């Protein structure tokens, strides 16, 4: 789903995982503080600037956003039609753009829908920035610091490690089925769902067998032999991390201050 970690030397790559995690939180919280799409749009632009300056592949982002588009449109429609005019403080927003029968589509509702869409975009983009620039080991150490058991963290890491493997396997299974006369992806929606199920079954059978082998391989590599394990690269806050974290705290305080002055409402 998210873009995988890719080793590089960009300025975000060099930051500590905690700085990035805090940044993700700050951006997300700010997006929930304001109702007006203007400020959220500003955050999206900022996030996009960061995203592209660190060299994230455009194709990967397209892949994530594309399946979300129908959901976005659905959200705009729902909010536009269901938010009654009385919900909005400004007169402008109480205006009805058009009506479907007796149900009015309000400008405020439409704008609120945009805000919701932008919130999702913000979370998608900022989490992509984190996953693209942070090795999974660092995220595991973060989990360890907040006292999440090692075994649990290991399950997450192994799951992520096997995403490309499973993708490759599912491709191979589909190829084998095509070579035996199955039309995959050319048959219309319902039928192609059916053909994906026949892909899923061998995939599940295969992963069950793989998980057994994996357990054996873990024992072979001494998993659980000692009470503690060594972390090769321990995460470390540097000066720039402290600076940026400070900036992030200021930013969120500023956001709350603005909100208290009734800025960014609808």
């Amino acid at each position, binding site marked *: 789903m998210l873009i995988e970690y890719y080793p590089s030397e960009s300025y975000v790559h060099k930051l500590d995982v905690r700085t990035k995690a805090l940044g993700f939180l700050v951006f997300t919280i700010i997006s929930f503080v304001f109702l007006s799409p203007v400020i959220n749009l500003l955050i999206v632009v900022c996030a996009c600037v960061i995203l592209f300056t660190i060299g994230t592949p455009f194709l990967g982002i397209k892949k994530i956003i594309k399946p979300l588009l129908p959901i976005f449109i659905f959200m705009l429609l729902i909010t536009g039609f269901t938010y009654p005019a009385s919900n909005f403080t400004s007169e402008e927003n109480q205006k009805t753009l058009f009506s479907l029968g007796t149900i009015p589509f309000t400008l405020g509702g439409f704008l609120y829908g945009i805000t919701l869409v932008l919130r999702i975009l913000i979370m998608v983009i900022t989490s992509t920035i984190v996953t693209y620039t942070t090795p999974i080991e660092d995220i595991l150490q973060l989990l360890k610091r907040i006292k999440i058991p090692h075994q649990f963290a290991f399950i997450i890491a192994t799951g992520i*490690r096997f995403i490309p493997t499973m993708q490759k396997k599912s491709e191979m*299974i589909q190829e084998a*089925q*095509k070579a035996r006369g199955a039309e995959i992806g050319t048959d219309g929606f319902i039928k192609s769902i059916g053909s994906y199920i026949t892909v899923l*079954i*061998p995939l599940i059978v295969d992963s069950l067998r793989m998980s057994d082998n994996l357990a054996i391989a873990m*024992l072979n590599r001494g998993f659980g032999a000692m009470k503690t394990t*060594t972390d090769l690269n321990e995460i470390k806050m540097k000066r720039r991390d402290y600076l940026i974290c400070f900036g992030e705290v200021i930013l969120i305080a500023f956001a709350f201050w603005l909100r208290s002055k009734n800025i960014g409402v609808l």
Partner: protein
Amino acid sequence: MVEVLERGSLKVDLLRFKYKNSLTDIFSSLNFKIERGEFIGLMGRTGAGKTTTMMLLNGLVPHFLEGDFEGNIIANTMNTRRYRVQTMARFIGLVLQDPETQIFGITVEKDVAFGPSNLAFGKEKIREVIGKSLKAVGLEGYEKRMTSELSGGEKQRLAIAGVLAMEPEILVLDEPTSELDPAGKEEIYKLLSGLKKKGDVTILISGHDTEEMLEYADRIIVLDDGQKIWEGRPTVLFKNVVLTKKVGIRPPEVTEIGNCLKECGLLDQGSVFINRNEFLQFTKKNLLSFKTSDNGSGKGHSVGNDSIAIETRDLSFNYEQKNSALNELNIKIHKGEFVALIGKNGAGKTTFSKQLNGLLRPTKGTVYINGKDIGRLTTAQLSKEVGYVFQNPDHQIFSATVYEEVEFGLKKMNLSEKIRSTRINSALEFVGLEKFTKRHPFTLGKGERQKLAFATVLVMEPKILIIDEPTTGQDWDGTNKMMRMLDKLHMQGHTILMITHNMILAAEYADRVIVFSNGKVLLDGPPEKVFYESEILKSASITAPDCVILAAELRDTGYKNYPVTINKLQNDLLEQLARKGNVN
């Protein structure tokens, strides 16, 4: 009896073992001892119990894979009954067959660090062992690479590095070379023998690699049906025709010639050749000199007729990120030909094959099947003409019974129930699975699953068959059975393309050999020609079958033929010896 065992030694005293919930796989009285620093080969058929034996050594059996266990296994002075597998792992490293499930890290470096950090080695120490073990397996400079982007051979080496990094005293490897090309195979054995020389690592390796076992192993232990039936020096084992036949081990090619000469009374008992030098000495001693140059080449197979089954014109192909995988290929394959595609891993053999049924589409150029441009046909539409058997049977099996599995392809074909069932039964009969129609495919053995995958393609009755490494990971018996099936289909007039790393099979069965290298055709011709281009083959890291090398070395004596199979060379020799009269 009090016995002092050294560190790094192994002692197996298994009285009996039977897997829980299993009726077969019974082990009884398995006893052997391995001294520190030895290099031991473990051989035997698929299903003889090699993997279980290896899992016994670090306690995976019976601690993880439970069963009825009686006996004592002492590895590195530790009785496996008393230690956890994880603790044993510090001293006895086990590398299993499938590298994919033995890689945990997202980058190479992190994966190698997994073992040592589980053992809580210090940070400096871990850095040191990462460097050392990657160097040992020839993956220096790969530290930051993503493990998902490695090739099969690289993954296999990484799996070994991951275990080496734990600095075990005993290294146990279960068929680590089964998916490698010949050059990669040789590299693994060289690496292991290097390790053995350097430190006091004890090595136990299983596999079907006759030539390598002969060269590198100090001792061979032969298993059959869960029992040790033989133990001794490899030279003795391979000379023993009766035994090797019985346990399904392929003897070296030169030994086969020796045995034939012995049977004809031309060689003393016990003086069967085990390496090429012995053979050459024999020919020198007998002052063999060939004067005739009878030309009996060609195999008597039906070589293809004039109409063309497959043609590619200026076929080029690029994968998304990588450089060109196929480069302007112009290949014509006639109906009824048996073509072997050979070349290193990654040379473009599979990429080329997948163009022929539309699984991959050319970036440039055209593919014609039976004269038709296939650009507009889907893979499914082509499936009646081009059958494709993939390498791993497990990705080709989707159904709950063997019968349904074979039926899969027919469902889309609008056939009557009756025709369907005749076709299914005849396909199953052809591969010898007719008794298993009701079984679940995954309860079959690996060799049988491979046959099933083969049947699922045969049932579509394609006239062109592409088979990707049909003998990978199979023992000698299984290999022969598979090849006999292919030969039979060839005789029936099918066009066959076989991707293989096994040069002996390519030489024996194919009418034509195409050598791929970096997405180009390096050589193309009958095996009698291709395998004698030793310089060009070398540049593609291909070693010709032994008998080609022998024939080349006989050139001094005036030998002029170009045999590619042992039988041919053998016959030439016998003829010559007969002409010369009595020998010895």
